[in-house]
């Protein structure tokens, strides 16, 4: 739309500026009127139905139990505490799901481009099956059709020694850290910091002198050797505590609820299908000439992949990958359908039913997801800007 040239067009309907102002004022007016109407109606309804408003309810005793709590929580805790428990449960599922689905997605995406016919077809089949079935159906399938019908604790399936799978969940051995654990973790931290500086130094030296130093390999060696030496000298930093049959159930070990396992499985398998397609498209987008030029310069296949193909592919992969990561976070709210106590199930479910304060509860829940979306996209935008094409 062209703007008027200030004084040249006479004031009036033919002046685009005047028109634009009138349109905007009209639209804003309508929006404000709607907002005012809905607020007034809501106040009237709340008064009529005797529903209190405000966030005071967050301090009230909740009075219900939650099956998975990462922070101390009892029935005497407040609604605010229940909100935090739900939020943490959402975050833990989202983070684990993101890590697993990105790894699986990259693997499948690369497999789909394999020169091996069978490998490529398996990956293609995976993508077509997983992507075209609704996520909720994935969750129902894993939860109601696979995990819930499993035998009880007495006849648990033991896929690996010390790992038990039954209708009460997945029971893993729990690492119990001993006295030397601190030294072990210190060694890992030292190796990570050392590796970071080694890589920086090697890059600087290569820029200055052109000499290569196998910094990555040296760092990995550091990461294996340092903690390894500490392990050998000071003894094992942790012991695995295996779960044991105790009465009708297991004692000890680490227990993952079936709801949690189903949710992570469903989210991971579903989202990995989408990520695989993004990765494939990204790698395909790097033109053949780039590989050929790298080969002509005498670069090895692995070096070509690391220095030429992947950096260019990442540029195309990151933006859609961000939206997949956001989708996974938002999709974790489907937990409510299989009764995993995430934010939506605990807060927009139980708390809403008990307090009846729909407006506050839904607004707070939406605000959490909006904030999570905002933080994720800010982080990914920052990373994207870092790897973007630097034009000079």
């Amino acid at each position, binding site marked *: 739309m062209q703007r008027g040239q200030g004084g040249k067009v006479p004031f009036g309907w033919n002046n685009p500026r005047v028109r634009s102002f009138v349109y*905007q004022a009209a639209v804003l007016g309508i929006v404000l009127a709607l907002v005012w109407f809905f607020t007034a109606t809501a106040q009237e309804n709340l008064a009529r139905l005797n529903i209190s408003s405000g966030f005071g309810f967050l301090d009230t005793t909740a009075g219900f139990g939650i099956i998975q709590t990462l922070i101390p929580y009892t029935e005497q805790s407040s609604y605010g505490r229940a909100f935090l428990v739900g939020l943490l449960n959402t975050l833990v599922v989202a983070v684990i799901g993101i890590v697993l689905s990105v790894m699986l997605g990259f693997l499948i995406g690369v497999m789909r481009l394999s020169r091996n016919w069978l490998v490529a077809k398996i990956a293609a089949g995976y993508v077509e099956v997983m992507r075209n079935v*609704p996520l909720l159906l994935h969750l129902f399938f894993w939860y109601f059709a696979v995990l819930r019908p499993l035998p009880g604790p007495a006849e648990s399936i033991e896929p690996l020694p010390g790992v038990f799978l039954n209708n009460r969940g997945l029971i893993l051995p729990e690492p119990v850290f001993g006295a030397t654990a601190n030294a072990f973790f210190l060694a890992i931290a030292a190796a990570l910091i050392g590796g970071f500086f080694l890589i920086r130094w090697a890059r600087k030296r290569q820029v200055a002198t052109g000499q290569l130093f196998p910094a990555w390999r040296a760092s990995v060696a550091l990461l294996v050797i340092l903690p390894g030496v500490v392990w050998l000298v000071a003894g094992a930093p942790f012991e695995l505590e295996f779960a044991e049959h105790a009465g009708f159930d297991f004692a000890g070990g680490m227990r993952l609820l079936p709801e949690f396992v189903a949710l992570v499985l469903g989210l991971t398998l579903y989202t990995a299908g989408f990520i695989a397609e993004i990765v494939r498209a990204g790698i395909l987008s790097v033109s053949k000439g780039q590989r050929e030029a790298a080969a002509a310069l005498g670069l090895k296949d692995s070096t070509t992949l690391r220095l030429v193909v992947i950096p260019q592919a990442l540029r195309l992969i990151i933006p859609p990958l961000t939206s997949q990561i956001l989708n996974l976070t938002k999709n974790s709210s*489907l937990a409510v359908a299989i009764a995993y106590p995430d934010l939506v199930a605990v807060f927009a479910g139980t708390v809403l039913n008990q307090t009846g304060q729909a407006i506050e509860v839904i607004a707070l829940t939406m605000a959490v997801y909006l904030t999570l979306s905002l933080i994720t996209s800010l982080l990914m935008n920052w990373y994207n800007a870092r790897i973007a094409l630097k034009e000079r």
Partner: protein
Amino acid sequence: MGMEDITGRPAPRSKRLTPLVWAQRNLFSSVSNTILTLVSAYLLWLTIPPVLDFTIFSAVWTGTTREACLAPGAGMCWPFIWANIDQFIYGRYPPEEIWRVNLTFALGAAVIIPMLIPGLPARRLNLVFLLIVYPLVAIVLLAGDRPGLRPVPTSEWGGLLVTLVVAVTGIVASLPLGVLLALGRRSNMPAIRMLCIIFIEFWRGVPLITVLFMASVMLPLFLPEGVNPDNLLRVLVGVALFSSAYMAEVIRGGLQAIPPGQYEAARALGLTYWQAMGQVVLPQALRHVIPGIVNTFIGLFKDTTLVLIVGIFDLLGQVRAQLSDPNWTMPQGALTGYIFAALVFWAFCFGMSRYSTFMERRLDTTRER
């Protein structure tokens, strides 16, 4: 390079592509490739036979009651599907009125299929019919809110019918809304641009479940006393707003791909803003993003399953409901029901995604690899 006389040589023999040569090239070209092939074959051996066994070879195909499926080792219980197929398609819609649903489906197919075939004439007329006439006819037929038809409340709708109603409403409402929002987001007027950005980013930032919760528990609080739209209608409004935000971003992508010269030329010819957009820019932009629109529709189609969380029985919800029927309790019940639902959803979504790939190929004449 030195020249060599090759006139006297016999023509090179081409290696014929026998299955053995093909396998050697594609499966066993090197040691690592051979290992990969063997590992993959083992993985397939672990997964495919049990699946085929359950769904086909050990499956129970005939019978009318669950007793047919209770034999030890029996696989998928198809009698369960046959016995409940009406519920899966129509929900609790009165059996003697089912012809109205079938008529609606048939009309819908008659409108949509010609739209999908490229090169058929009268597409604009067809689009108008799909966006305006068909929804009205469908509402009258399904709800029966007219003399001569028996009214059927939406609480009796269910199954595939609800899945399609939610999905089609989502797409029909989101196309025009999405176009308006996309234009608004690219407008020169700051107030309108800001409103559109806030609207789009809000709906894209929250999960559909919270939108559905909002529609079913929060919306009634914002409406005057006595105004009480039914649950399905409220959910449809939520779905329409939600999908219009996603549609707006897809269409915005198309608008960005059209060079500004097109719009400027149209304005120079004396067209107004709406004429320039409607006759010149949008037809090009929308054609560019047909694959994106189809993909949004696939996403929406899968997301319709979430309505079961707010108590509306779509196909998946109906499968769940029939599974809790005591007449059909059996060990393989859940697997049977969910595999069947997965097959139905898969068929729809796979078909649509194939169509989207087909259109992408047709539209993209420049890419040659």
